[in-house]
């Protein structure tokens, strides 16, 4: 996982609530066995006029020129500004892989789908939560100044855009993982004794949950 310390990039506004993970990456692309290569299918139903397939190069498809991600400079955006409950719905991590592969590193929204938010951290994406009023102001800023860039400092927990500086909350664990690009599984390995001890205790408490093969 790529560490995320500071990031600066173009902000693309997606001004609607409840953007779901089906919208971020339609089910057609869940047929892949891979965990990468989804960037050209992000927002697929809106980005293309014709239906796609995982094994069909996107270059051969008709792009929807009206969709914001097809318009420069947003086709190079790496910060996504969104509305409430972004990433709701399915647990598919593919939606986050699509954002990441497109080049998005930072999200700004009032709230996120719970599972989606975890998936972001597990892939080195930063989902910043800001109050609705602040998000509304950011939409106004970005819509008035297409291609404006935002700068995020993970260590300091700050966001700079259009001459303004905002702070955001981030818990210590997520900050640490982002800064170091840490693999959670490797980190949990340091707890293996605790897991084994717990398991021994739990086997006594609830033996019916063990040796369950039939």
């Amino acid at each position: 996982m790529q560490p995320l310390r500071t990031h600066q990039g173009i902000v693309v506004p997606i001004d609607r609530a409840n953007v779901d993970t089906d919208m971020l990456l339609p089910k057609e692309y869940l047929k892949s066995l891979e965990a990468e290569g989804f960037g050209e299918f992000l927002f697929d139903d809106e980005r293309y006029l014709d239906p796609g397939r995982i094994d069909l190069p996107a270059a051969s498809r008709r792009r929807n020129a009206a969709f914001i991600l097809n318009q420069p400079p947003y086709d190079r955006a790496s910060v996504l500004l969104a509305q409430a409950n972004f990433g709701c719905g399915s647990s598919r991590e593919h939606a986050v892989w699509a954002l990441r592969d497109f080049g998005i590193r930072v999200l700004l929204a009032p709230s996120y789908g719970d599972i989606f938010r975890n998936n972001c951290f597990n892939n080195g994406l930063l989902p910043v939560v800001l109050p609705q009023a602040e998000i509304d102001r950011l939409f106004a800023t970005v819509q008035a100044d297409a291609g404006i860039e935002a700068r995020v400092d993970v260590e300091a927990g700050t966001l700079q855009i259009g001459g303004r500086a905002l702070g955001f909350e981030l818990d210590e664990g997520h900050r640490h993982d982002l800064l170091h690009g840490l693999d959670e599984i490797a980190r949990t390995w340091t707890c293996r004794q605790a897991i084994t001890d717990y398991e021994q205790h739990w086997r006594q408490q609830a033996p019916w949950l063990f040796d369950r093969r039939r």
Partner: protein
Amino acid sequence: MRPCTPFNVYNPRQDTVTARTLYDKLWDSHRVADLADGSSLLYIDLHLLHEVTSPQAFAHLRRAGRALWRSDATIATPDHNVPTLHRELGLDGFDDPLARLQVDTLERNCRAFDVPLFPLGDLRQGIVHVVGPEQGLTLPGMTVVCGDSHTATHGALAALAHGIGSSEVEHVLARQTLRSRKLRAMRIEIDGELPAGVSAKDLALHVIGRIGAAGGSGHAIEFCGRAVRGLSMEARMTLCNMSIEAGARVGLIAYDEVTENYVNGRTYAPSGSLWQAAIHQWRQLHSDEGAVFDRTVHLQAAEVAPGVTWGTSPDMTVAIDGRVPTLEEARTPLQRQDWQRALDYMGLQPGQAIAGTPVDKVFLGSCTNSRIEDLRAAAEILRGRRVHPRIRLAMAVPGSGLVALQAEREGLDQVFLEAGFEWRAPGCSMCLGMNADRLAPGERCASTSNRNFEGRQGRGGRTHLMSPAMAAAAAVAGALVDVRSL
């Protein structure tokens, strides 16, 4: 940062005298360690796998040279991407080489990592969230995860269950734990009794309509009250299943005699003295008197009517005798804009009556509504009736091979076939339309599934969510209709 502080599992404070919620009890009993960042390591008792969100996790395990922690707590079955026709041919019945490769990969991964599998052709194969409870794999008091957001279904058995992403699937495979943050607790109390002709699905849609698609975000919801106590186990699963559509990863219902009777005698459930020990423990699986919830919502069951969704978010619901909202009713400019977009997508007019809207396809199935009681409810409406000629396809997709077998024993398959439904093989099917079962652009579907998102059942397809009885009624009428009027 310090790696982890083992939680003292023998600490008698676990049985503290302070009143705890059901969620507190499940959380406390599975807490392995407290991590320095404020999260906890939670032990996972049951991990369900399917072909779509597991291949990346297995591939990564392999590359990192990691072993499976515990294969007897893991079980797999293909469901998301299996065809519902020609299943007697096994993998040769697949038209889609990518789907075939996914199912084949699941089988190979299960062999390589020694994970028990209910493969294609096995009667026990089916939708993970139907199979877990049906087999007695899901038990009260346990933690259950799966790379699927509808894992909340299992909370109906007083189990702490939620969906996870593929990175977390890998974490559970390798460490049998999950790094978790405690959710806030929300209680949804539904007083009174559901009126005749109103089902758990109608109740779920009513709840989501009331609290909104993000109303439960960051919360574990416990459903309680007389109306919930009065639901069968399968109806409770329908209710908990849709928690995620209200934004909550976790939906819970306290253990009671309905739970006990449901679990007793199932294949993987304990028996004999173990059963006695288990039920002794399980009977504590309820929120204590005086337990504190972060939020409580009271609803009256008498106010629930057969419901349908009109838009592209599951909180865009309306009673079948109601009207689609007008844009003037929107509370914010953003909501107005979202409603306009939903109306355009759905091909509906603001303020129009929802009943009478013509339907092209009918889908009876999904982890929400593919159990035997769902099939019985639909068959009861269809008996002696015919699918309206306007309907291009009406399909019934049982949730598992065993559900199908039971339905066939009861002659329900014949009821469906005689009415003009197709009787298909188990899988997720048109709920997410990964396989060939999907809507064409502009097609309108009466569906018992859980999501009405744009493109969910097929690019450009229009989904109206409803109960099995309502979907059957729509099939007969060729349009959205109040099942109570048939």
